[in-house]
C-alpha cells in the first residue's frame, strides 16, 4: 500500500513539475506548482514526517502560493484571461489516466525490486513536533537565531527597495 501511494505521489509530483515548467500560462503554472507541493507533502506523510507534511501544505501550498497568485494577477500577465478557455476536460482526463497507468506500471516494477523498506520505528519519532522543537531549541539554537537576522535583513531590504523615491 505504502509503495503504491509513494509511486502515485512521486509520479504526480514529477508530472506536475514538468507541467509547471512547460505550461505557457503563468496562472496554470502556479496551480501545477500547488499540485506538486501537495504531492510532496504526501510523500512526507508516507515517511512519517507529519510536521513537515503539515508545514508543506500550510506554508508552501497555502501561504506562498497565495502570494504567487496575487503577484501574477496584480502584474496582469497577458495570458491571464485564457485560463478558463483553455481547460480542455478531455485533455485533463487523459493526463490523469496516463498518470494512473504509469504509476501502476511503476508500481509493478517497484514491488519486484522491493524498492521501499518500511520506515523504522525510531525514525518515525523524529518527525513529530516535539522532537523538532527539542532539536530546534537545543542543537540548532544558533542557526535559529541567525535565521531571525536573515529574515529581518530581507524585510528591511524589501522595504527599502519598495519605498525610497530618490530625487
Amino acid at each position, binding site marked *: 500500500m505504502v509503495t503504491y501511494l509513494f509511486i502515485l505521489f512521486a509520479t504526480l509530483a514529477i508530472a506536475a513539475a514538468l507541467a509547471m515548467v512547460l505550461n505557457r500560462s503563468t496562472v496554470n503554472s502556479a496551480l501545477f506548482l500547488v499540485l506538486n507541493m501537495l504531492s510532496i507533502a504526501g510523500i512526507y506523510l508516507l515517511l512519517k514526517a507529519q510536521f513537515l507534511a503539515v508545514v508543506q501544505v500550510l506554508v508552501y501550498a497555502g501561504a506562498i502560493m497565495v502570494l504567487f497568485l496575487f503577484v501574477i494577477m496584480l502584474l496582469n500577465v497577458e495570458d491571464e484571461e485564457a485560463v478558463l478557455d483553455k481547460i480542455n476536460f478531455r485533455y485533463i482526463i487523459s493526463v490523469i489516466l496516463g498518470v494512473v497507468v504509469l504509476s501502476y506500471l511503476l508500481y509493478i516494477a517497484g514491488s519486484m525490486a522491493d524498492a521501499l523498506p518500511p520506515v523504522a520505528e525510531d525514525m518515525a519519532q523524529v518527525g513529530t513536533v516535539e522532537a523538532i522543537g527539542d532539536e530546534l531549541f537545543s*542543537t540548532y539554537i544558533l542557526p535559529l537565531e*541567525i535565521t531571525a537576522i*536573515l529574515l529581518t535583513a530581507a524585510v*528591511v531590504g*524589501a*522595504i527599502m527597495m519598495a519605498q525610497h523615491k530618490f530625487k
Partner: protein
Amino acid sequence: MESISQLLHFFPLIIVTIGSLVVMMVDAFSKDTAKLYYLSVFFLIAALAASISDVFGPAGEAFYGMAVYGGTSAMGGVIVLLGTLFVVLLCKEYLTAIKHHVGEVYSLILFCTVGMLVLVTANDLVTLFLGVETMSIALYVLAGLIKRDKAGAEAALKYFLLGAFATGFFLYGIALLYGAAGSTQLTAIAEVTDGGLIYWGGLAMLLVGIFFKISAVPFHMWTPDVYQGAPTLITAYMATASKAAVIVALIILLGRAFPDIHSDWAEVFQVIAVLTMILGNVIALVQDNMKRMLAYSSIAHVGYIMVGLVAGTAAGYSGVMYYLFAYTIMNVGAFGVVAYYERQKGLDFTNMENYGGLGYKQPMFGVAMSIFMFSLAGIPPFAGFIGKYQVFAAAVYEGYIGLVLVGVITSVIGVYYYIRVLVYLYMREPESDTVFQQPGMVYKTAILVLAIMTIYFGIQPGALSEIFTQGFEQLQIMAATGR
C-alpha cells in the same frame, strides 16, 4: 546554560547583531541619518576590538558543534570587520554626494556583516549556509541601491538571479553530503573519505556554490557587470569583506571537513586557479572602465588565493589569510579613490581615459592610488607583494612548480593594467578643467590610513603572518582532538 557561557566567545558577532538592530530601530524613529553613521562606526570599532582580543584568546567549538571560535575564525573576523569599518567610514560622504544617503544602508551593511561573521565561525553546513544567505540577501539589496540607474538595477537583478541559482547548487550539495555522512557537522564529514557518487557529487556542488560567491572562473560571469553597476563603495565591500568571509569559511571547510582527501580536491583547485588567473588578468588588460578593471583584477586575485589553498598546508592557509588581509586594505583604498573621482561633475570619472592629470589635481589621492595600484600589482615593498610571496612560496614548497609559474607570469601581465592607471594619472593631459571638490576630513584620513597600512604591512609582515600561522595550527589541533 552552557550556551550562555559560550556566548562570551562570540562578542564580535553579538556586538554587530545588536548594532544592526539598534541602527534599524533608530532609523525608524529618527530623521538624522548622520546619527546612524556614528552609531555604526561605534559598533564596528567595538566589534573590531573584541575580535582582535579573540585572536589571542582560546579556540574551540561551541553551540553543539555549530560554530568554532578563536584561531582562523577570529582572524577572519578581524579582516571582515576591518574592511567593513573602512567602507562605512568612506560611505557617508560618497552616498551624500550621489544623494543616496539613506539610513537603511547602514543597517543592511551591519546585517551583511553579521552574515560574514557567522560565515567565518561556521563549523556546520547549516550555519555555513545561513551565513552565506544572510550576507547575500543584504548584498543583493545594496547592489541595487541606485534604482534610477539602469546599470544598477541590472546589476542587482543579475546578482540576485545568479546568486539564487548558485544557492540551489549549494543546498543540493549540503543535502547530498548529509546523505553521505549522516551529519552536517564538518568534523563528522571528515570521517567519511569516500562515500561514492553521493559524496563526490555533494562536494562538487557545495564547491560550485562557494566558487560562485568568490567568483572563480568559470563561475565569474556576474562579477564585472555587478561590480560596475553597484555603487562604488558597495562594490568595494563586495570585493573585499564578502570575498574574505567566504574564503575564510572555505579554509575552515577544507581544513576541518576534507583534510584527508586533499590530493583529490587540490587537482580541481589547480585547474580552476590556472583558469582564474589567466582569464582575470588577460581580460583586465583591455578594460577602460575602472570598476570593470578592478572586477577582473579581483577575479585574478582569487586565482592567486587559490594557489595558496592548493598547497593545503598551514603555511598555505596562513598565506591566504595574509593575502586576504592585504587585499582587503588595498582594494578598499583603491575603490575609495575611484569613488572620490567618480563623484566629480563634468566627465564620467569611472572611465580611465578621463583620468588624465588627476594625480596633480589632488596630490594625496594620486599618491595613495599609486600605492594601492603598486600593491595590487604585487610590487615590493607593499603588502600585496608579501601576500603573493607567501601563497606562492607555500605552493612551491609542496611541489606545485608549474602552478606557481603560471601565477608569476600572469602577475607580470597584470602589472600592465595597474601601471596603466598611473600613466593616465601622471603622464596624460587633463581631459577637462573640472574643479575638484575637496574631500572631507574623515575620507582623507581613512584613505591615508589605508595607504600607510599597505606600506607598513609590506615592510613589517613578520608579526602578523606569525599570528596567522599560529591561528591555523590551533584550528588544526582542534580538528584533530575534536573528532
